């Protein structure tokens, strides 16, 4: 009979090992999935995890993509992790990402075709503000009316998607686009274009912002009172309240910060890699970032690594669909599986497994 015995406190060793264990388990389960799809599992796993970085033909293209894909994931996940630690569940980052992109692009397009160095910084502010305000809706409703932030933030994703469609088809549509949906391409507008800082490396301003966010979050959690309050509220809500933590302030801070970061991610994406507001602009970074946050153990440094790994599965997935005909949906299932395994092996950090004889209850 296997029983679980609660550890006095979570094991540090297992906290570090479990993500790796989950990745290995996912590779095995994913291999089985690929085998069922009729693909050679070893080749599929190699194509996803190895070839994007080291294949002589593709690596030169996919290595920069790694940064392009990892930046929004890390940026969003860093914000989400703050909330998750405090027990504030913002799962609508996808919506905040969209709103950030719309606001950022709208500011840029409003100045078209003026050229000025001030435009891009203004777009950054607008992007962050857009995401911030969108996240404030569940925040304020939670604080004022105790409305469940999980449901509100998630439902607002669908609302944001409709706003995106309306913008791409109407308000922000390219007037010179012959009636095709989608805004002007910001890549052709130097003042608003988020170009690679070093050409062909994928290193755009979003990557810089992601690194800055990770450093800030690290300092916040380890040195700052707010970080301590966040951790306290998550682990012992009652103690936190006696300790003078204002729950309302904490909720607004967590939602606002994560919203602003998601908005920034959307803005850097629309002004750089995507280039324009289009109906299918969002590709689910806001949801994948939830997996990244957990895979990184809600720890900024962990999120940095998890973001890179998850970006790798995106690029490897594209490669596998191109090379082996693996459907792209398989990668989504693969990512979902990773989160399952992660949550499953997580039990080892706070419980010890004991093999004991069954006792009378």
């Amino acid at each position, binding site marked *: 009979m296997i029983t679980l*015995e*609660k550890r006095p406190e979570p094991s540090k060793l297992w906290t570090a090992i479990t993500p790796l264990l989950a990745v290995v388990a996912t590779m095995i389960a994913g291999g089985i999935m690929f085998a069922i799809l009729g693909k050679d599992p070893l080749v599929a796993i190699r194509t996803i995890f190895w070839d994007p970085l080291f294949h002589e033909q593709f690596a030169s293209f996919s290595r920069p993509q790694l940064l392009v894909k990892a930046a929004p994931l890390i940026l969003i996940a860093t914000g989400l992790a703050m909330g998750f630690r405090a027990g504030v569940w913002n799962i609508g980052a996808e919506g905040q990402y969209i709103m950030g992109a719309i606001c950022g692009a709208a500011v840029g397009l409003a100045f078209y075709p003026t050229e000025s160095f001030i435009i891009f910084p203004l777009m950054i502010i607008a992007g962050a503000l857009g995401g911030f305000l969108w996240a404030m809706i569940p925040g304020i409703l939670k604080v004022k009316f105790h409305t469940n932030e999980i449901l509100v933030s998630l439902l607002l994703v669908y609302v944001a998607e409709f706003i995106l469609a309306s913008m791409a088809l109407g308000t922000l549509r390219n007037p010179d686009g012959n009636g095709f949906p989608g805004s002007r391409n910001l890549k052709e507008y130097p003042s608003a274009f988020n170009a690679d800082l070093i050409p062909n490396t994928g290193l755009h301003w979003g990557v810089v912002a992601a690194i800055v966010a990770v450093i800030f979050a690290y300092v916040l959690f380890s040195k700052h009172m707010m970080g301590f309050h966040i951790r306290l509220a998550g682990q012992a809500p009652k103690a936190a309240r006696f300790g003078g933590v204002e729950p309302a302030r904490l909720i607004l801070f967590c939602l606002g910060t994560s919203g602003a970061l998601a908005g920034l991610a959307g803005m850097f994406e629309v002004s750089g890699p995507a280039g324009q507001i289009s109906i299918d602009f969002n590709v689910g970074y806001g949801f994948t970032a939830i997996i990244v946050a957990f895979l990184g153990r809600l720890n900024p440094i962990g999120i940095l690594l998890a973001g890179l790994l998850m970006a790798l599965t995106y690029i490897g997935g594209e490669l596998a669909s191109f090379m082996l005909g693996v459907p792209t949906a398989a*990668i989504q299932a693969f990512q979902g599986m990773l989160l399952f395994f992660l949550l499953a092996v997580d039990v080892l950090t706070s419980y010890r497994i004991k093999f004991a004889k069954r006792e009378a209850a």
Partner: protein
Amino acid sequence: MDLSAISPTLLIASLMVAATPILLAALGEMVVEKSGVLNLGVEGMMITGAICGFAIAVETGSPVVGFIAAAVGGAVLSLIFGILTQYLLSNQVATGLALTLFGLGLSSLMGQSYVGIRPPAIDKLNLGPLADIPFFGPVLFNHDLMVYLTLALCVGIWTVLKFTRAGLILRAVGENHDAAHALGYKVVKVRLMAIMFGGACAGLGGAYLSLIRVPQWTEGMTAGAGWIALAIVVFASWRPLRVLLGAYLFGGVTVLQLNLQAAGLAIPVEYLSMSPYLITIAVLVIMSAPRKGGKARASLAAPACLGRAFHASN
């Protein structure tokens, strides 16, 4: 714009069809939450049920077998959630999200060869002369069997929860799992059964979308229906008959905005399409807001152990 083109009879009749998938999912989730478990994976289970039901109905040519497959598919998927949260004590919010993300990926993987196919048609139930009654005939007596089965399920759940021992045990487990455990009830087993029931209901709801309401398979076709079902459970204060009311209210809004789109209202289509989500949020706010000098309706009615992990050592 021509509002006179909207017929109230047809509106109410299609409202019942529009509400059925959400009603099924919400009823299942309500039972799960009554047992003290918060499963946020409704969307994932619904869409998995949608493709399971669709694929099997197409392959066998039988919608009935399709619906059974959808229920099984939803239940199997929910079992992953059950094992993780009940045996491995994982965080319910995170696991539910994982279930949704995984379900969305899995379903589009399974559904690749089913895009653009029409499922076998499902006849409306022939209720003879009843369907000929003016107004009430088309509104109430001219639907497929699933609409009536769903209504029966609603009444059934209400009866079981209110009048039977099984219902009492389920509620006890949800209100105070330590006390229920001390009384000798198998908390984990009860919860697993509730979770699988919820999964089966969500699967049926999804299959209703793909087999009857739409009827077609497209990726991500549930479009937030699972989340709205979750919101309706809160709106209903965990009561089966109010779940019915909530689902019909939501169905009504959906059908009305579709009709307004068709009638060419001066509001852009996108803004009409987002109205069901906005109204769901508004209703959530009303239900969650604290009343004068007291607690909110919703927080009073919520099962006391909702979302809390149970481990016999605690």
